[in-house]
């Protein structure tokens, strides 16, 4: 770190902290960056001020020269604050470009202060501006990265939730399970669904499983393969598999695709599937005559 390189900026940041902070906040509102609809002035000021303080720490201790590296140790505090602010704002619906503009809005007030101080030293002014720009740009890029990572995490989370939602294994009666399939089946999901089903068979000691296709829109060769593999695996575990909810369209498609279901029991509705399953485990549904 070269002392001369950072000392001017550092002293400006320290001595004129409030002026820069006010300038930053007003630039944000001038440019419509400050989302008052999403958070209050007070919160915005606190966040902005903690960012500025963390930035001073970074510049004072870190390498800001050619080896400037935002991921290095002295910038830990700033990164932490940036992550907090970004995550919090993204959760409130602030867009990545709003977030970048928010960070970049810091340039104005600092440039202004530098200009005042170094009015008659053009060479030095350019150098200082060049240096501080690089640091602030790095902040903005970092914010965007955090933003994207946060979005990815949310997408991943939602995907997991959806998968779990769409593959419940339900115990309908003693020894009878049902797996209502919904949506599309790719290989990864089929694998997961099968694992879940087989583990439940083991836990509940179920003897009959109804795999219901009522909620499945289309059956292509791949889906049919998964279905038949599932039936085979269920049989290997020692339980029986009934595939129900095969619509006329699905039946026709399967024949056209040349899918041979072999020994697997198929039923058009879950209703007949259930009656069949109960029958196999020794129960019968009877109509109770009114007294």
């Amino acid at each position, binding site marked *: 770190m070269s002392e001369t390189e950072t000392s001017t900026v550092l002293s400006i940041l320290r001595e004129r902290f409030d002026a820069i902070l006010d300038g930053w906040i007003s630039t944000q509102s001038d440019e419509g960056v400050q989302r008052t609809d999403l958070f209050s002035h007070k919160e915005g000021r606190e966040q902005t001020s903690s960012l500025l303080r963390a930035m001073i720490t970074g510049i004072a201790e870190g390498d800001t020269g050619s080896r400037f590296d935002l991921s290095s140790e002295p910038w830990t505090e700033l990164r932490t604050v940036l992550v907090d602010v970004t995550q919090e704002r993204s959760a409130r619906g602030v867009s990545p470009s709003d977030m970048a503009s928010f960070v970049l809005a810091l340039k104005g007030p600092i440039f202004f202060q530098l200009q005042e101080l170094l009015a008659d030293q053009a060479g030095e002014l350019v150098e200082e501006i060049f240096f501080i720009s690089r640091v602030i740009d790095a902040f903005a890029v970092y914010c965007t990265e955090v933003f994207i990572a946060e979005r990815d995490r949310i997408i991943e989370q939602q995907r997991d939730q959806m998968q779990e939602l769409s593959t419940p294994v339900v115990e309908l009666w003693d020894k009878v399970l049902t797996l209502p399939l919904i949506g599309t089946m790719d290989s990864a999901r089929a694998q997961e669904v099968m694992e879940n089903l087989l583990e439940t068979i083991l836990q509940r000691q179920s003897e009959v499983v109804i795999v219901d296709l009522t909620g499945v829109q289309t059956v292509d060769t791949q889906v049919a393969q998964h279905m038949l*593999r599932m039936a085979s*695996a269920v049989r*290997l575990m*020692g339980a029986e598999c009934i595939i129900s909810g095969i619509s006329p369209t699905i039946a026709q498609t399967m024949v056209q695709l040349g899918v041979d279901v072999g020994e697997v029991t198929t039923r058009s509705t879950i209703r007949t599937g259930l009656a069949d399953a109960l029958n196999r485990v020794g129960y019968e549904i009877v109509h109770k005559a009114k007294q």
Partner: protein
Amino acid sequence: MSAASAIYFVEGVLLVAIQEDISDTDILDLQEALAERIVRDSARAVVMDINALEIVDTFVGRILAQLASVSKLLDAQTYVVGMRPAVAMTLVELGMDLPESKTALSLSHALQDLRGKPLA
């Protein structure tokens, strides 16, 4: 008879619990021993408990399939019981469905099936 697996004869049924670390040689010996026992004991069925097996590869799968076919020729029904979920998924992936064997969740489920009534 193989050291890795003991064969028991109960209610006219040969029961075998295959041990976790059974080797290829052991399982070949077992196959031979079982064929002989089916005839000697006039067994009506063979129940193989494979719950201890963490994996069943194509070799072991083939022996199980052959055993079922041999038993069928000797008029005995084969049951494979206690297969683990992960093993079932892997075998299906390998294209081995053991079509000649009956399957059951456990030994008692198989015996119940042989007695001809559902497990209470």
